[in-house]
Each structure stands twice: as C-alpha cells, then as structure tokens.
C-alpha cells in the first residue's frame, strides 16, 4: 500500500541528480532530506553517486596523436591574425 506521505527509496534514487543539482522544489528537497535522515540505504546511494562523480572526474584523456598535432600547427601557420 503506497501512502500519501511516502517518498520511498525507489523514488529517491531517481531524484538524486536533481537533488545534487539543487533543482528540486523546496518541498521535494525537504522530503528527500527527511528521508536521508532515517534511510541508510539511500544515504549510501547518494554517497556512491558522489564518489562516482569524483572518480569520473579523474579520467585523463589520451594525448592527441603527433600527426594531428602537426596538422593543427600547419593550420595555425596558415592563419593570419586580424
């Protein structure tokens, strides 16, 4: 039986991004935070999303290949500043 006041975990996990973006309505943000107070599972889930973001930010790209580098330099030499 799904109740009026209910913001169950299955819905909270769908709101975490909006929560982190500070895009929830005042009422929803409160309901979510109220939920985190008693729900270890969702608190952990939020923490994991945060950790995911941190880890994702650590991905270093590969260097651009030398051939492309040369083409870019060539393009620069072809270019005349205004």
């Amino acid at each position: 039986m799904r109740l009026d006041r209910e913001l169950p975990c299955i819905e909270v996990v769908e709101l975490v991004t909006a929560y982190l973006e500070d895009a929830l309505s005042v009422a929803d943000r409160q309901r979510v935070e109220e939920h985190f107070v008693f729900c270890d599972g969702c608190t952990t889930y939020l923490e994991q999303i945060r950790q995911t973001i941190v880890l994702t930010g650590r991905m270093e790209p590969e260097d651009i290949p030398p051939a492309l580098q040369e083409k870019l330099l060539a393009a620069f030499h072809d270019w005349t500043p205004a």
Partner: protein
Amino acid sequence: MEAAPSAEERRLVDALRAGDESAFTQLVQEYGPSMLRVARMFVSSRAVAEEVVQEAWVGVLNGIDRFEGRSSLKTWIFRILTNTAKTRAIREGRSIPFSALAGEGEEPGGVDADRFLGDDSRFPGHWAAPPQRWEALPERRLLAAETLDVIEREIAKLPPNQAIVVTMRDVEGFDAEDVRNALDISETNQRVLLHRARTKLRRALEEYMQ
C-alpha cells in the same frame, strides 16, 4: 566552471591574437585531448573526430577576435567544438537525439526493481537489498586505476547523448549552464541524460566492487 576568463586565459587570448604560436600550442596541449574525446562521441570514427578537432581549432583561430569573454575561454572553445561535431554528425547521417527523451521508456541499467520491496510489504518501495558502502571495502579498490577502466568502459557503452553530457559535466567539469548552451538543450533534458549516465556508472562500479 568560471563564467569569465581567468587571468591566464586572458593572457593566452591576447597572445593568440598577436599571432603567438606558443600560446596556440599551449591551448592545444591543454584542451586538445579532451576535445578529441568529446568529438569522438558525436561521430562515426576516430579519424572523423580528428578532423572535427582540426576544424574546431580553425574556428577558434578565426573567431578569437570576436571572443568577448562572456564565458571562460574553455567554454567558448568547447562550444565551437560541439557545434562543429554536431554539424559533422548530421552530415554523416548521425543525429544525436538530445531532446528526444519521449519514448525512451524504461531504461535498463538503472537500479533493478528487485532491489526494492514490493507493494505487499510493510515498506513498499524501500530497499530490500540496500547498497553497501564502498568504504567498507579495501581502500585500494577505490583508488585503483581499474576503477577508471570500469568507468571508461561503461561510458563507451552509453548512448551518445548520455556519454556526451556526463563527459562534459563530470569528466570535463563544465557546469549545467555551459552544457545546455553548448548542446542547445534544456536544463531538464540535460539533467535527465546526466542522471541516466550517472546511474549506470554507479551501478557498474557497484558490480566491480563486489
């Protein structure tokens, strides 16, 4: 991301306008790899992505006089990149539906429904099998290069629109406004794509951690 060029960026802009090659080289070194990574998500091959990057830099040079500093230099450069990439993608017959969210329906890869209690329980929709904190696992796991591989592999499996948004937001550090402008999508669209991507990345990490 800052909403205006930093002092260093302003110096580079001035130097570039004066024809300073070392300024160009510095910018290419700093942003080129990321630009290639993002371009690759729009187009059909690495070779095409390299062409996009080349075209974008030409656009940067041709436009540098018109850069007004209303955003950071990085944001401006990446806007040129994404515009170039989008145009090229369309020419290739690949249009990436950033706004076509209707009809995506139930996305697999989120949290499985069986992780939650059913409607007949005393707490419908609450966790049946809650996630376990990653801190409880050996610390090394979180820091290992393997976790980055997990993320990279998972991003490669994302639909392009999600991959691009999560790359620009969480990998490159652009804020929501920058990404909205670069991709010309609404805040809601951007957020939904980001949400789906992050949900899948977390799940992939959870599976790896177990």
